[in-house]
């Protein structure tokens, strides 16, 4: 079976490195981008099976912008996006799909520090592996 490709978009190189190590060990192929714009371009070029997306990137495209662009791209809109943020708890704001979908529409949401096992279960659920 062809290995599934996961694109990690995060402006923190350490996070990318540890996620890459983790996902490769889980049997996935990884692609990475350290800013939103490169992330969207890689997604358009390489059609990943799933995208891990940092929400609060201070780069040319924020996580919100990346999500919007991918979900409105006819070629990519079916690609599951897992949003990751370190802010939800502090702000007392939890992502609620029904309310926040119009603004930000990832298919799942994780808060940092990420529980790797739960993340893996969610990824497998999306990729049906």
């Amino acid at each position, binding site marked *: 079976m062809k290995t599934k490709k996961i694109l990690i978009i995060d402006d923190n190189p350490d996070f990318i490195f540890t996620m890459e*190590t983790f996902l490769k060990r889980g049997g996935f192929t990884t692609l990475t981008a350290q800013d939103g714009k490169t992330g969207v371009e890689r997604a358009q070029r390489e059609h990943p099976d799933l995208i891990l997306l940092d929400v609060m990137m201070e780069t040319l495209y924020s996580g919100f912008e990346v999500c919007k662009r991918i979900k409105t791209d006819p070629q990519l809109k079916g690609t599951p996006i897992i949003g990751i943020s370190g802010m939800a708890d502090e702000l007392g704001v939890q992502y609620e799909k029904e309310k926040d979908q119009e603004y930000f529409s990832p298919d799942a949401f994780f808060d*940092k520090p990420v529980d*790797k096992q739960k993340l893996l279960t969610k990824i497998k659920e999306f990729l049906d592996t």
Partner: protein
Amino acid sequence: MMEEKTHPPLLDLGYKAIVDLLPCYLSIQDRFFNVLVANQTFRNDFGDAIGKKCHEVYKQSGIRCSPCPVWETFQDKKGHMSEETVRLPAGATIQLVVYSVPILDSLGNVMAVMEISTDISRIKEFQKELTFLGQSVASLSHDIKNILEGLQGGSYVVNEAIKDQDQELLKKGWSVVQKNIGEISRLVQNILYSSKKRTPAYETVALEQMLLETVGFFYEKAQLIECRLRAQVNPSLPMVLLDPGAARRMLINLISNALEACSRDKGKISHTLSVRADYFDSHHFMLEVEDDGIGMDDSTSEKLFSRFFSTKGMDGTGLGLLVVHDMAKEHGGRIEVLSAPGKGSTFRVIFPLKPTCPF
């Protein structure tokens, strides 16, 4: 009435005198907002307002406030409340909480409205402090969580590397752990520094030695991101008076930021970071940190020294530059920032050669 019996001398004052003594502004207004009656406290702070319109007295404005509790009370005969910012004739601005009460005639119509206002400026200040405290806690816990993510991630990689006996991976994982230990130590130092007002503990400092030592902490980190570190000190600079601990902290924060700006700049193959000490003019010397990293636009530069402003998204509380700002101020110095997006930034902290002659 109990008070009247037990304290007859107080009643001799008369109700008008008691009203005058109230530590709040009390006025009675007609339906055109003309002040008919004002108590002494009101007159003391706003002058003789009788016959003038309320909004002219409070806000030097030709139109009534919106919302206006007095107007609302005239409309519905009920009491109302609002918060207003008003200007005293002396120029100071204060915040008031304003209550309005209807005064009814024998037919039950509103013939006038009594307005009672209390100065809540101090309460508002406390409120601001509390909001700030809340934001600080949120921002700090966010930063700590990020470091935690780094520590957990790094130790996960270390564990995997040990399992596989992969030396290369072990090195990489361990460097992530070390980096985050450094981050948390820097964060704690900055929290401690910014948590209280300090008077610099001046000592005679040889700038060359201090610069070389401080820059030395960063050689390894700079190498990892292909950044060349340079320390330049004008040899004719004399020994200067500085709080060495504070100055070192300041340089550490500026150099960390500059390295971060270089590592975020993907447009160049390698970078240069220069730390300089030189004369600014005949009475001042400067410490300067220059990088050719991502740089900043004007709007970012303007917000730099506000508490908890950070451009680093997940990686910064914004506390670092605040510490630099506080340190410069405590030394009677000032900061200049030159920056252009894509070209880099220069942070220059200028100190008086004699601390007794600040700017």
